């Protein structure tokens, strides 16, 4: 078996992985291997042809491929070894890996540090248990996006989108632009799953109806989807009487994302129920020393910009780990309190600066984001599950946190 020696391996060349590789390189680590199973770097950004990327990181309104290009061009100016069409087959707790591609076959790698940046997966029809037949014409929104924007196939002409996640709404617009008719977007919650800007510019702009508190309760069709039955949901989320049917040939599911955990499980990382990803500290290090994780593989982010930022932190930390300068300080556990579904990173160890991301359970107006010890106290006009709250902790706040075992974050109404 071929053997490659490398200081750091980075798994996944999306925004998080590319940012991690670039940062580690900048920190002086020259022997870096960046692998991705796709034939080119960029990850899912390449199929996200819409704009809205980069507003945070570059202060510009970029499309996905343009955002990716910023990192790809930089990669080209470094000595980072980018191996494409390459997959990680095996990974052990003592950081031994077997990777494979169509040129070299199986390759052994024993990196000193690992940065995992595999992104996330879409939840499917099965995971939301929609009854009915199993005809063709049922896709996750992201798969339909790849078919359209990269492979050049229109997945269907008469469309219903299940779930109002951002990709679902973006695909509703995309398919409309290419001549399909999108009859409805359904959402079980009383509020949209994605960003307001997408409700306005992807649905309202094209008069695509959004049915809140509705769900598809039956799928009909033998070879191809023929129709769906839609019901209004009561307060408990149960279908009510008075259903209606929409004839369609295509169903897109946009019902949430889950961190890609195959490798995390291989090395027995404990997974958080709240995020679906492994527990991490503020260097994006997992419970296994020298193994870092960032971007959507760690927890599902709202923006690719955040994945880039996390990649930088993980890349820097991996470099420091190699130089023995990654401080193993005392740990304060970060805990989700009232109206907080999750808050990450799970542990605070750093003393310089840390950004926490909190996702609320329910939308709320006029709230205070607070913490144990009164260390955090932020007023917000509105919080929504679709938009993570960013909590910046400076060295002064971190000094106060140092004495704590636990930092509980609450989001409560001001009344």
């Amino acid at each position: 078996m071929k053997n490659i020696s490398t200081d750091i391996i980075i798994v996944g060349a999306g925004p998080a992985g590319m940012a991690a590789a670039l940062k580690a390189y900048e920190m002086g680590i020259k022997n870096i291997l960046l692998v991705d199973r796709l034939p080119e770097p960029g990850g899912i950004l390449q199929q996200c042809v819409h704009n809205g990327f980069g507003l945070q990181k570059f202060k510009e309104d970029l499309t996905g491929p343009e955002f990716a290009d910023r990192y790809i061009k930089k990669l080209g100016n470094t000595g980072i070894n980018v191996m494409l069409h390459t997959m990680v087959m095996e990974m052990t707790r003592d950081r031994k890996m077997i990777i494979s591609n169509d040129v070299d076959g199986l390759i052994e790698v024993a990196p000193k540090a690992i940065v995992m940046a595999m992104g996330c997966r879409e939840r499917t029809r099965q995971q939301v248990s929609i009854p009915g037949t199993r005809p063709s014409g049922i896709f996750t929104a992201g798969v339909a996006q790849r078919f359209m924007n990269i492979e050049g196939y229109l997945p269907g002409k008469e469309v219903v989108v299940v779930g109002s996640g951002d990709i679902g709404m973006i695909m509703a617009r995309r398919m409309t632009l290419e001549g399909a008719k999108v009859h409805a977007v359904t959402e079980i919650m009383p509020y949209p799953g994605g960003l307001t800007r997408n409700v306005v510019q992807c649905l309202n702009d094209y008069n695509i109806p959004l049915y809140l508190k509705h769900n598809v309760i039956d799928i009909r069709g033998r070879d191809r989807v023929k129709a769906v039955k839609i019901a209004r949901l009561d307060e408990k989320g149960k279908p009510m009487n008075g259903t209606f049917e929409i004839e369609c040939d295509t169903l897109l599911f946009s019902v949430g994302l889950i961190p890609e955990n195959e490798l995390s499980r291989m090395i027995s990382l404990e997974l958080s129920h709240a995020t679906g990803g492994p527990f991490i500290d503020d260097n994006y290090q997992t419970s296994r020393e020298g193994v870092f994780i960032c971007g959507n593989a760690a927890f599902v982010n709202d923006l690719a910009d955040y994945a880039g930022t996390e990649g930088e932190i993980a890349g820097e930390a991996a470099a420091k780990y190699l130089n023995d300068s990654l401080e193993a300080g005392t740990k304060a556990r970060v805990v989700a309190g009232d109206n907080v579904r999750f808050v990450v990173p799970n542990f605070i160890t750093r003393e310089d600066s840390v950004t926490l991301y909190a996702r609320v359970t329910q939308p709320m107006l006029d709230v205070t984001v607070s913490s144990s010890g009164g260390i955090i106290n932020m007023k917000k006009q509105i919080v929504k599950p679709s938009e993570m709250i960013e909590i910046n902790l400076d060295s002064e706040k971190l000094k106060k946190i140092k004495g704590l075992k636990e930092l509980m974050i609450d989001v409560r109404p001001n009344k």
Partner: protein
Amino acid sequence: MSDRINEKKFICIMCPLGCEVTVKSDESGQITEILGNSCKKGETYARDEFTEPMRVLTSTVAVEGARFARLPVRTSDLIPKDRIFDCMKEIQKIRVKAPVKLGDKMIENILGLGVDIVATRDLSL
């Protein structure tokens, strides 16, 4: 009835608050009142949406000689919202050849709008 015709509602997207802003106008289409916004940005947003809503259009074009079938493109600047489908018709007509560089003009001055359709990535042979 006539009251409703002269009232248009917009959801402001300038911040996560998402205010529902109402724009009232007289018969000649002149704005008489803007209501429901929480800040100045919301007023400007609603005014622009009422008078001439503008959008960035992103799409893909057929490409030959590349690894992929489609090349992603965008308008180099904002275009009027009501010209989106006209622009799509033009975009659907063209077929380009790889290699292409990010920023290359695929359609120059589309429909005389003073805006180009440009490639949003490099695509090699």
